[in-house]
C-alpha cells in the first residue's frame, strides 16, 4: 500500500515527536494517522492529484534526521540581511542559526516545540483551524509527522518591525523535513514573511504546512521561494483564514525541486482581499504543481490571481486555480489569469482554472494562455545584433520577470533576479 513503509516507521519515531504529554495533540496525530492509513499518499485517481504522481515517495523511505549540520557560507547566500530569521534544519528549529533579536515586545516568534511547552492551550484552539486531515493525505501526513516549525503571533495593531524569513534547510540525504507553521495576526496586525526552501543534498522530502489566521483588517504578505534541490520532493501547503477587511498577498516562486506541489488556499470573510501571484520555472524532468483555492464566503471580497509558468525540456507544470463564490458572497470581484510559456516541444503544462459561482451579483473573470516565444520577436532582437540564444533568453527572462517585478522587498527581488538570470542568462533588465 502507498505509504505503508512510513506507517511502519512511525511507531518507532512517534516518541521523538513533540507534544507527547498533550492528549489533544496525540488525538490530533492519531486521527491524522488513521486518515493517512486508509490510502497513503494521494494518487492520480483523485481529481486534485490527476497530474501529479507521488510514487517517488514510496520508492524511498524518507525519514527524520536529527542532524543540525549546515554549511553556513552556503546557507548565507539565501539569507536576507534586513530580516529576522528562523532557520529550520532538517525540520528542526536551530536556535543558533536563527536571528530573532529585532522583534518588538508584542510580536512573538518561537519554535513550535517551544510553543507547545509554553502555551499548549493557545495552540490547541488554533492548530487545525485553517486545514484538516480531510483536505488530502499530504496534510494528514503532515498532521501526524510534523516535528517542529515556527509559531508567529502579532498582537492587535502590531507590525513586525522587519520581514521574517523562515529558512527551510535540508542537509541530509533522504531526510524527511516535516514542519508545521502557524501565523496568527490579530486584529489590524501586519507582517511580511518569506519562506525559503533549500537543500544542500539532492534527495529528500519536504512536507510543510502553514496555517495563517488573519484577524479583522490584518495584513499578511507571504513569499514562498522554493529553491529545493534537483531531486527533492516538495509539498508546501498554505491555508489561510481571512477575517473581515483583511489582506493576504502571496507570491509563490517555484523554481526548484524534482517534484513540487504547492497548495495555497484562502477563505475570505467580508471585504477581504486576496492576491496570489506565482511563477513556476521548470526544466529537465522537473514537475511543478500549483494548486490554489480562493473561497469567497462573504460579500465584497476581492481576489486577484496571476500565475506564470515557463517550461523547458521535458518539464511539466500544473496550474489548478479554483475560485468559489458562495451564495452569500455578493459583490465579489475576482480575476484569475494563468499564462504559460513552453520552450520545448516536450514540455507540458496542464492548466485548469475553475470558477464556481453561487451568487448572482459578482464580477469574475479568468483567462489562460499557453504559447511559445514569438518568432517575430526573436527576429527583431536578432536584427538588432543579439544572437538567437541571447534573444530567446531575454524574451523568456522578460516573461518571467514580470512576476519578480511585483516583489516589493528589494533584497528578495535581487535574490530572485539572480536565480532567474542563472536560468536565462541575459543582461539584467
Amino acid at each position: 500500500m502507498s505509504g505503508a513503509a512510513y506507517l511502519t516507521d512511525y511507531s518507532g519515531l512517534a516518541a521523538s515527536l513533540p507534544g507527547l504529554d498533550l492528549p489533544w495533540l496525540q488525538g490530533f496525530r492519531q486521527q491524522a494517522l488513521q486518515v493517512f492509513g486508509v490510502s497513503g499518499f494521494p494518487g492520480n485517481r483523485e481529481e486534485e492529484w490527476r497530474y501529479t504522481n507521488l510514487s517517488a515517495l514510496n520508492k524511498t523511505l524518507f525519514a527524520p534526521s536529527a542532524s543540525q549540520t549546515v554549511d553556513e557560507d552556503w546557507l548565507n547566500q539565501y539569507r536576507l540581511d534586513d530580516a529576522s530569521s528562523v532557520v529550520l534544519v532538517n525540520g528542526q528549529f536551530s536556535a543558533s542559526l536563527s536571528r530573532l533579536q529585532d522583534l518588538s515586545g508584542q510580536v512573538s516568534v518561537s519554535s513550535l516545540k517551544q510553543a507547545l511547552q509554553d502555551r499548549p492551550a493557545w495552540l490547541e484552539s488554533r492548530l487545525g483551524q485553517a486545514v484538516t486531515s480531510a483536505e488530502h493525505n499530504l496534510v494528514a501526513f503532515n498532521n501526524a509527522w510534523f516535528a517542529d516549525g515556527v509559531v508567529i503571533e502579532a498582537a492587535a495593531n502590531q507590525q513586525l518591525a522587519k520581514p521574517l524569513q523562515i529558512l527551510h534547510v535540508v542537509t541530509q540525504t533522504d531526510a524527511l523535513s516535516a514542519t508545521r507553521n502557524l501565523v496568527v495576526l490579530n486584529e489590524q496586525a501586519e507582517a511580511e514573511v518569506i519562506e525559503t526552501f533549500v537543500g544542500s543534498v539532492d534527495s529528500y522530502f519536504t512536507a510543510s504546512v502553514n496555517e495563517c489566521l488573519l484577524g479583522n483588517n490584518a495584513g499578511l504578505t507571504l513569499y514562498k521561494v522554493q529553491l529545493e534541490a534537483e531531486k527533492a520532493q516538495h509539498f508546501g501547503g498554505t491555508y489561510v483564514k481571512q477575517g473581515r477587511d483583511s489582506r493576504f498577498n502571496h507570491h509563490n516562486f517555484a523554481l526548484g525541486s524534482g517534484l513540487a506541489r504547492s497548495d495555497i488556499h484562502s477563505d475570505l470573510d467580508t471585504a477581504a482581499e486576496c492576491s496570489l501571484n506565482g511563477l513556476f520555472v521548470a526544466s529537465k524532468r522537473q514537475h511543478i504543481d500549483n494548486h490554489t483555492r480562493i473561497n469567497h464566503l462573504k460579500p465584497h471580497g476581492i481576489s486577484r490571481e496571476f500565475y506564470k509558468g515557463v517550461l523547458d525540456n521535458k518539464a511539466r507544470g500544473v496550474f489548478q486555480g479554483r475560485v468559489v463564490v458562495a451564495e452569500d458572497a455578493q459583490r465579489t470581484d475576482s480575476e484569475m489569469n494563468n499564462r504559460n510559456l513552453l520552450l520545448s516541444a516536450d514540455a507540458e503544462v496542464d492548466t485548469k482554472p475553475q470558477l464556481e459561482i453561487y451568487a448572482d451579483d459578482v464580477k469574475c473573470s479568468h483567462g489562460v494562455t499557453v504559447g511559445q516565444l514569438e518568432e517575430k520577436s526573436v527576429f527583431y532582437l536578432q536584427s538588432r545584433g543579439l544572437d538567437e540564444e541571447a534573444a530567446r533568453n531575454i524574451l523568456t527572462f522578460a516573461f518571467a520577470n514580470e512576476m519578480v517585478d511585483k516583489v516589493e522587498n528589494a533584497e528578495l527581488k535581487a535574490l530572485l533576479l539572480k536565480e532567474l538570470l542563472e536560468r536565462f542568462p541575459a543582461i539584467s533588465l
Partner: protein
Amino acid sequence: MLSIKNLHVTINDKPILKGLTLDINPGEVHAIMGPNGAGKSTLSHVLSGKAGYTVTEGSVMYNGKDLLELAPEIRAREGVFLAFQYPVEIPGVSNIYLLKAALNAMRKHQGLPEVDAMDFLTIVKSKVKLLQMDEKFLYRAVNEGFSGGEKKRNEILQAAILEPKLCILDETDSGLDIDALRIVSEGVNSLRNAERSFLMITHYQRLLDYIKPDVVHVLADGKIVKSGGPELALELEERGYSWLEGQAA
C-alpha cells in the same frame, strides 16, 4: 557597398523576386517605389535575414561579403539596419535595455569594449532629443503601447544609436502624419553622410520631399523596371505605376 545581382526569391515555392539587380554606393540614398505585391518588403526581409524566404538564384554582396551567408545578428553587427514596417512590441524589455544590449553586441563584434554607462546615457539622450521623443520612452517596454508614429520614431532612434552602414527603411513613412513625417525625416537626414547608405522603401512620393534620394527605382513584379533621379518619383506620382508594369513582363 551593396551589390544585388539577379536575385530570385520564393516564399513557399511562390516566386516573389524575379531577377532583381541593384547597386548602392557608399553615401547614396536609393528609394524603391512600387505597387503593392511588387516584392518591396520581401527585399528588405531577405537583406536582413528573416526566415521563410528561399533565394533560388542570384547574389547579394555587402562590403565584399556574401550577405546571404550571414546570420541576421551578424548582418546587424556588420552594419545592416532594418527599420521595420511593423516594429515588434517586446513586453518586459525596456527600450534602453535593448539599445544598450544592441550597441554592446555591435561593439564586441568590432573588438571594442562595452560602452561606459554614463557615455551611453549621454549619447542616448542626445538622440532622443534629436527625434523629439520624451525620455520616458527609454524606460518603457520596446514599442509596447506606442502609437504608430512613436514606433517609427523609435526605429530611427535605434538607427541613430547603432550608426549602421546600410540603413533599410521599410515603409517608415506609412502611417505618419505630416508632423511625425517631418521629425522622422529630419532624424534620417541627420544620419546621412558620405559613408552611410540608405535604401528607402515607400509607397508615397511625399517621403521623398523630405529625404532627397540620389536614385529612384521602380519595383514591379519582382524586378526593377525603371531607375532614374528624383524626378522619376514625381512622374510616378502623376502617372501611377500601370504604364511601367507592362515592362516587367
